[in-house]
């Protein structure tokens, strides 16, 4: 490996671990405001990672994707989430299904699991970014875990968005960016999915006067 590749490898693992770190920081927090903030920072670091991969991987298309990501996930979605939170009222994640200390340990184990299952892939790969692949898979797991372990509809949405960030990171690391049109399609998908979820949250909130999804498992209320 030459100097260029070594630096690329180190920067990509570094940025991937920062992105993962914000995913784990999410698990420590309780209020939705803190969730949104952590997601925002994560998306910012993610778009910087895209710029970095675009620069070292000589793929200018990634700059456009990074800009779209910045606009969508650092500004538009957090802004919508904050507005949504103001509409349905601030509810804190008081008692998640899995308590906070345990969820942190579980997140650590999930990342180790990601290391274990991506090991064959990392071993055959020749990409300089291969060291960061397990971290991206780990982030996908952490996002899934946020969805299944939290009670409030809004925090589950943030979990979904984190999961999506993980997928975007994995795509960028493995292929230096899928074609621009596909990536834009994915972004549009996320935005649509998010808008649909937002409408559902309004309905949950107006029907039950709470966004605790626990209420949905009962037939009557």
């Amino acid at each position: 490996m030459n100097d260029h590749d070594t630096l690329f490898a180190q920067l990509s693992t570094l940025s991937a671990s920062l992105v993962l770190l914000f995913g784990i920081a999410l698990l420590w927090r309780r209020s939705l405001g803190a969730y949104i903030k952590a997601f925002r920072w994560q998306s910012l670091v993610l778009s910087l990672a895209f710029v970095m991969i675009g620069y070292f991987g000589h793929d200018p298309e990634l700059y456009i994707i990074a800009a779209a990501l910045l606009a969508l996930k650092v500004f538009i979605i957090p802004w919508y989430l904050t507005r949504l939170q103001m509409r349905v009222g601030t509810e804190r994640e008081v008692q998640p299904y899995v308590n906070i200390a345990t969820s942190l340990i579980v997140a650590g184990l999930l990342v180790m699991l990601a290391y274990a299952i991506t090991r064959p892939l990392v071993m055959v790969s020749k990409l300089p970014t291969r060291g960061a692949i397990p971290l991206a898979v780990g982030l996908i797991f952490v996002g899934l875990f946020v969805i299944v372990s939290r009670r409030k509809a809004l925090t589950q949405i943030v979990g979904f968005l984190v999961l999506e960030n993980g997928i975007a990171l994995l795509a960028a690391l493995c292929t230096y960016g899928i074609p621009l049109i596909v990536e834009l399609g994915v972004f549009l998908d996320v935005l649509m999915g998010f808008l649909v979820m937002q409408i559902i949250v309004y309905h949950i909130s107006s029907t039950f006067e709470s966004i605790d999804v626990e209420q949905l498992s009962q037939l009557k209320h």
Partner: protein
Amino acid sequence: MTGYLLEIGQALLALLLAPGLTGFIRWVKARLQGRRGAPPWQPYYDLRKLFGKDVVVSKNASWLFRFAPYMIFASTLAVTMIVPLVAAPLPFDAVGDLLAVVYLLLLGTFFLALAGLDPGTPFGGMGASREMTIAAIAEPTIALAIFGLAVGAGSTNLGRIVAQTLANPGGVINPGHLLGFSALFIVMLAETGRMPVDNPSTHLELTMIHEAMILEYSGRYLALIEWAAALKLLVFFSLLSNLFLPWGVATALTPGALGVAVIALALKLAALAVTVAVLETRLAKLRLFRVPELLAVSFVLALLSVTSSFLLR
């Protein structure tokens, strides 16, 4: 022979610097909060005053109460001889490694908790139980955070780890290093009783931890415990600075290199002290039941640090 002189010199340096470090943090904090504050050398006066005072011991206290301060002081002093403060391969590297550091520190904590329980006051018992709750989660994290570096260096010897990082400076920006640093930083705050975990500047507060255990102490015993607490802070600061950013540590025992090392150590300690002071000014104390969650964060960081440095070797 020079090696042993170096060890003694290093321990003396730590003893001399430690109260000043505590005083410096207090002074910066006071300045940040808009107070004038006591001068940074105030703890030296405090220690001299305490050593000159009589000791008052409760009638219920046993020999353990009198013995514990010496034990706490001695075990912390022993750690300063293993941790590379100014020079990297130390002659005492053969005596103890990373695990010795962790368990010597734990030995001090153990005796402090016993001494808190011994006179049978409610505050002492409360403090001891809290301290143990924290220590039980914090100690393995210290070891684990440094293991991340040890994997890279191929040795648990602190001197070897420092020498290895100095020889291979590119490794500093790898994720294992960063995660390990943040893990150790959080544990440092918990172990030395700093702000989000314990408030070092109050006595008689219901949530205190360290102060609750030493409430019964006076005179030279209190002086020894305070000095040991300052030493422990210095040990953690120098672990953080010299293991993760080892520049300036002398690899050859020449007067010039040692001089540079002492200056570099002082600068790094000052930088960390300012960071801690800023943190303490900005953060509110966590509720006691959230402390294990904070420590779980640092444990996970340490775990990830070891995993990534082990698998990316």
